[in-house]
């Protein structure tokens, strides 16, 4: 299958073997800072690599589904990573937000597929309820360190 599209996309959360439900999209950006090493008498700019960083986002419908006797909502699971409650108004000492491991997956027809395993910190979750639209969450994340070595998306 030469091309891949949304039909082949999945998102796995925290090592689950079951793909998250009702994922509309995922995306990531990999950035490498560069450091300027240009000196006097140089005629062309020279660079070395600096620090790499990765960030991304995904969008999930807020959707309840049944798994056995349990009701699950993967969107709510992600919300729970970043939103922590307090016991009273003004309570400033509460649980820290949780890290999450996201697998951005492409089903290439093989048994393993292609994916990036990203240890991430959620930095932003945005939800809006509006007439004529389905409730969904836009989740942004920053990758903590490098992608895990299990990742194979970059393998040719």
């Amino acid at each position: 299958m030469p091309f891949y599209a949304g039909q082949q996309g999945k998102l796995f959360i925290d090592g689950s073997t079951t793909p998250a439900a009702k994922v509309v999209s995922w995306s990531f950006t990999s950035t490498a800072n560069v450091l300027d090493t240009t000196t006097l008498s140089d005629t062309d700019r020279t660079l070395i690599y600096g620090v790499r960083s990765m960030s991304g986002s995904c969008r999930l419908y807020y959707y309840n589904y049944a798994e056995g006797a349990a009701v699950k909502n993967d969107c709510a699971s992600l919300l729970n990573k970043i939103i922590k409650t307090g016991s009273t108004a003004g309570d400033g000492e509460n649980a820290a937000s949780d890290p999450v491991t996201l697998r951005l997956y492409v089903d290439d027809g093989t048994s393993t597929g292609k994916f990036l395993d990203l240890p991430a910190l959620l930095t932003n979750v945005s939800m809006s309820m509006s007439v004529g639209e389905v409730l969904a969450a836009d989740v942004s994340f920053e990758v903590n360190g490098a992608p895990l070595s299990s990742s194979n998306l970059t393998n040719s």
Partner: protein
Amino acid sequence: MAIFLGQQGHVELRRDASNQALATTLDPDDVNPSRKRFSVDFAAGALITGDQITIATVDKAPLELVAGHVDDTGEFYPDYRGYVHVDDAGGVRLYETFSDSVAGGPDAAVALVKPSTAQAVLIQTRDTNYNCLAQVTKYELTTSRDQVQTDVLGDEFRSYYEAGLISGQGTLSCFWQHKQGLCEGEGNPEFSSYLARLILRLKQGSGFDGRFYVYSCGAEPAVWYDTKCIVTNVGLSVEPGQIVQTQIQFAATGPIVLHQGEPTAYLLQEDSGVILQEDGSAIELEDGD
């Protein structure tokens, strides 16, 4: 298998009764009893000839305007309900019937008295009757439901949220008419000119209640759409040698209901509640005396 022709279709409209009241002041000099005519601010842009209105004092004090509109003690009632004819200068005459108001003129107009002092009044258009729209050559009505995509990763086929918003819009094609000719039928038809005026109405907007009959034939059960509409576009075509035609585009606002059966009728009570008349038999109010 039956087929139906357009001859059994027609359009009825009721002038929108849910409009915001116009607040204004009726000064003694605004009323000309000899001409049976009065004027208030905004009338030229807000009222349309044929509108049924209620004019009432804000503080429920006696409304000194309509001659003889008094109770047993000789006190003026605080309000009056009737039909209006608005002339080009913004002058208003009151009438007892819709047809008289459309015809205009002082003869059938209600006699007026000059108020002794300035009165703060509220004028609200209201109508309980549906009138046929005259000279309709064609109408189209489209109902649609918004498609809200719910596609997710892994889907092979498009999927949609099943309960998207419902909307409706349509077009009325009519021969232009702005007045009733001599010896021309009975009843109180609305003319396409009303819809042309409606889109230009200030203050109260361009709403009307519409019934769009697909089939209506004598005593047989009718089929019709019932919805509130706003006029969104009026096109007029005037061409030498051709009939003047108008195209009125409208959009439904609020529920759209497809009925089959007999149109409901209402008997109004003094407290503005309604009694639903479900069959053709006489009801006790009619059997009084």
